């Protein structure tokens, strides 16, 4: 131990230039393409800018405008709702599917593949497929009609009461398979001896699940939760492709509102301020979660 340590220390004093280059060049690229634009975004959030004239400095004006902006409020509430619904359901359904499909049986691969298949489609393609299904004379309404539920027929994406939930479904449809695969990997890693021991002790299936499966999956949970939080705060493409945040902002998320204010209404300052809010939210949620997760792991 001591030997290795001292060897490493002496080498650290004379870093070979190649190694230095391998660190510094990507760092420079990162600074130039990631950190610098990010900082500029922060600066823009303090300005009023239409993309043509020079930005006008307005201090915290954009942020104080948000406090009185009803659309911002809708978008923020929807984002939280999205996080809970999309996140909660995809974790629950993914775990459920993994538990159902974990045993090796004949043909199980087909079901796994079927659930995983949506993951390989891009979200925009997914959205297009679902858009066709949600059409007034699309598949869903036709099926409802044919099973005698014609009264339930609906312009799903054009009604402010249903648009938000209609948009969550394709996002979930795609996410569940992904989460399922993560959980399947986790389940495979559990030592079967634990279950055998539990069976000898006379534990029921529910008890096995509570006292063996769930605790053993803790590390996978951390991964799944980070993935879900990041994915849901980033959700944009599916909403944009299906409703563009409409009808009249009922399915607006912070991300779609940011895009439409910045690039459609060309209020780039206010759009940047919204981006800063999204950044703070995502960063806050993820950091606080990771800190807690690692503290528990220690």
């Amino acid at each position, binding site marked *: 131990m001591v030997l290795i340590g001292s060897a490493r220390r002496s080498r650290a004093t004379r870093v070979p230039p190649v190694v230095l280059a391998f660190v510094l060049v990507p760092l420079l690229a990162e600074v130039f393409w990631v950190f610098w634009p990010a900082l500029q975004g922060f600066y823009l959030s303090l300005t*009023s800018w*239409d*993309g*043509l*004239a020079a930005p006008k400095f307005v201090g915290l004006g954009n942020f104080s405008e948000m406090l009185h902006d*009803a659309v911002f409020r809708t978008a923020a509430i929807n984002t939280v709702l999205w996080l809970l619904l999309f996140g909660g359901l995809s974790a629950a359904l993914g775990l459920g599917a993994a538990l159902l499909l974990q045993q090796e049986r004949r043909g199980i691969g087909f079901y796994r593949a079927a659930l995983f298949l949506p993951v390989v489609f*891009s*979200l*925009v393609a997914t959205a297009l497929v679902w*858009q066709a299904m949600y*059409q*007034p004379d699309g598949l869903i309404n036709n099926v409802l009609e044919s099973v005698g539920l014609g009264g339930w027929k609906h*312009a799903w*994406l*054009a*009604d*402010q009461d249903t648009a938000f939930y209609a948009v969550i479904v394709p996002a979930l449809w795609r996410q569940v398979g992904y989460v399922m695969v993560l959980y399947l990997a986790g389940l495979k890693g559990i030592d079967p001896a634990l279950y055998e021991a539990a069976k000898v002790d006379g534990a029921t299936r529910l008890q096995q699940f509570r006292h063996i499966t769930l605790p053993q999956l803790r590390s996978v949970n951390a991964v799944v939760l980070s993935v879900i939080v990041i*994915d849901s705060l*980033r959700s*944009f*493409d599916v909403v944009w492709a299906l409703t*563009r945040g*409409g*009808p*009249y*902002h009922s399915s607006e998320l912070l991300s779609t509102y940011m895009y*439409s204010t910045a*690039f*459609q*209404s*060309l*209020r780039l300052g*206010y759009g940047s301020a919204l981006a800063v809010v999204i950044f703070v939210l995502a960063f806050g949620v993820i950091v606080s979660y990771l800190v807690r997760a690692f503290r528990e792991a220690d």
Partner: protein
Amino acid sequence: MTAFNATRRRFLVGAGAVGAGALLSGCVTQSPSASGGKSGGPVTLQSNLSSPQAKTAMQAIVAAFDERGDAKAELNTVASETFRTQLPTYLTSANPPDVYTWYPGSVAESYAKKDLLLGLDDIWEKPELSGYSDALKKLCTSASSGKKVFVPTSYYWWGMFYRKSNFSKWGVQEPKTWDEFLDLCDKLKSKGVAPIGLGAGGDTPWVASAWFDYLDIRVNGATYHRELLAGKHRFDDPEVRKVFDKWDEARPYFDPNGTAIPFQDATTALLQGRTGMMLIGTFFADAAPKDALGDLDFFQFPIIDPKVPVAEEAPTDGYFASARTKRADDVKELLRYLATAEAQELYLKSSSGTTLPTHPDAKDAGTPLVLKGRKVIEGAADLTQFFNRDSSDALQPTADTALVHYLAKPKEIGSILTTWQRSAQKIWSQ
């Protein structure tokens, strides 16, 4: 995830291409055959006309221009939505594309005010453009600098389109007045047809603005309409309220799917006879099957108040150029060519032929539909463009939200107009 990955990958490819481009241009400047005087390379023509027919038509024009010798052009077709959102970036970049398809009037003016557009006064003196109508001359002149900044090449009209065979099957005729129009709607409804198609769903909510525009220019007149869109009146004024009172009379006849399907689907419904008529611009015919084209007809948006001078929506399309172009001479050469009767007829021949050329000598497609359209436009006391062209692209989303909201919750019109005014105010004040 996919979107971000894709952009990153595309960026890398782009960066590679830029690098390669730099290398190539380095080679070009070193070669002795570089053309003197001009800063090399073809004029880039950035086009948002991405429908197959229009794209073919554009390619035909560029090929014909290249054949004439001297300057060369290169067509770069970009999806409409991307084009619109990227245009400010194009124009403010250090090395922008040279020529753009776009709109004159207030849309061009917002860029002209910031000195981003190439002044084109000299080519307007040349024979190709000198015969253009005074209205077009005025439309293409920047209000702030007094310079001409735009070359118009075609315009089209909006009207209530319908299928002749369907109207005769249902035993109905074109209405002239608002009351006749409502009668017609009643009759169609009694025959189980949705009288008015809309198509303000999907990604074309802006179609609803046509109804707002027309009702406003019929009730309050074109002058008031333009002033309203320029921020000189408020959207919660009683005059605007009157527009929606009229709309309320027609609303029960709208296709209930009006805000659920995009205009392309609404057009299909019209062609299949599921809806009776539709307020739309002639561009929809680009996608109509050839055999249906001859069966199409339209009538002028009904007159509501005979005292108000009749105005029509006739959006003009054409080109402007970046002020930062490095090939100003070639750019003007191309624009002059685009303004000729020859180029405009070439475009009409390759497209669906429902637009009208701006050159006085250029022949239009000559179909009865086009003749009728031309007559309506020429008989109008005033011409408007369209909501976003008379105001700005930035204001369009405020109209989309307000109008789609109105169609779903007409009783909330009071609060809708207040909200509309508030969001419009934010656009005007910046």
